[in-house]
């Protein structure tokens, strides 16, 4: 019986030790351009989908109007574009250097966002750990989160006004803009 337990114990200890030695060796991928770790994608996707399925609440996007799409476009230009891109612009160096690569939503042959709205909403609100995707629950209010979700769901078929709002984004595609632009987003919402 004691032999039995010893065998089990050694087996249990072996896997974490091997993993520890693997990391310790300096050959584990740390640079963002290195290839994925063994089973990395599989495990990470499992966890992500299990958690989202578990936590997501179905949301209904009520009244997606041109106005709400414009508001979504303004939030997108400020908080998302640096990584996820803008129509007619090359991906930024930040986006190019990340691992995993942030999906580019406005590339000519971009993958259409076909995730259900509740999953997009969950990701925007909570972020995705180990990917560089931030959670915006502390920075955007409920209405803004919904505007952004509605905007992303319709990214492939935006009205001209929303596209114009995207084009007004700063060159480097991120939010280092005067605070007034932030206020513009808020004011728009109240109107």
């Amino acid at each position, binding site marked *: 019986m004691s032999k039995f337990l010893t065998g089990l114990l050694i*087996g249990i200890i072996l896997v974490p030790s091997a993993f520890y030695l693997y990391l310790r060796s300096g050959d584990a991928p*740390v*640079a963002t351009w290195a290839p994925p770790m063994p089973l990395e994608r599989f*495990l990470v996707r499992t966890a992500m989908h299990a958690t989202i399925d578990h936590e997501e609440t179905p949301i209904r996007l009520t009244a997606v109007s041109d106005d709400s799409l414009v508001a979504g476009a303004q939030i997108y230009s400020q908080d998302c574009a640096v990584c996820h891109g803008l129509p007619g612009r090359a991906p930024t*160096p930040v986006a190019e250097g990340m691992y995993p690569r942030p999906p580019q939503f406005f590339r000519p042959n971009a993958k259409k966002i076909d995730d259900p709205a509740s999953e997009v909403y969950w990701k925007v609100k909570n972020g995705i750990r180990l990917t*560089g995707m931030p*959670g915006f629950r502390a920075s955007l209010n409920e209405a803004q989160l919904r505007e952004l979700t509605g905007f992303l769901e319709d990214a492939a078929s935006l009205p001209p006004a929303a596209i114009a709002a995207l084009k007004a984004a700063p060159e480097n595609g991120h939010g280092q803009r005067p605070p007034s632009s932030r206020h513009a987003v808020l004011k728009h919402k109240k109107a």
Partner: protein
Amino acid sequence: MKKYAIVFIAGILLVPAAFYLYLRSGYAPVSTSASPLPFERFFARLAMRATMSHELPKADAGPPTEAQLARGAHIYREYCAVCHGLPNEPRTAISKGLYPHPPQFFKPGESTTYNPNLPYRPAKRKVYWKVKNGIRLSGMPSFKGALTEEQIWEVSQFLGNARNLPPKVVAVVEGKPEQPQQAKSPSKSHQQIAADHK
């Protein structure tokens, strides 16, 4: 003996199976505001240090000149500030929402200090490595495709002196309009930046 081997294998399989079920359960931390995975910090730091110790550049660059700091400041403002912050500015929504939290090199909303009597510090090799290669699973991108070797050193030099920057460099990092002509995006293809180095 046979029994012993079976149990041994069962032990080996037990840990990955438990880990898989943990991830599958939907209770693993996926949201960026959740608490860390068990042992996450420990393993992540271990791998990062081990890899870096293999790959650090041999020599440090010497102490920077003010011109190098200014060029570093410009690159920093363009590529790094969105996550790592600027003097006199609040943190961006992106920066607040990331996990792990990107270190803030300037205290949010505060200006920098400058003591002209202190010498500039040389860049740290570890900083250079991180800018060049990025850090996986953290949101830190690699800039080896976008910046030249020299530019990566300049950014590292700037970061090494973030607590002690001369006013001219502060003006660059804060994007003050009275600054002389700046290239819009200091990418490798930009001849202007290359010319600046000469």
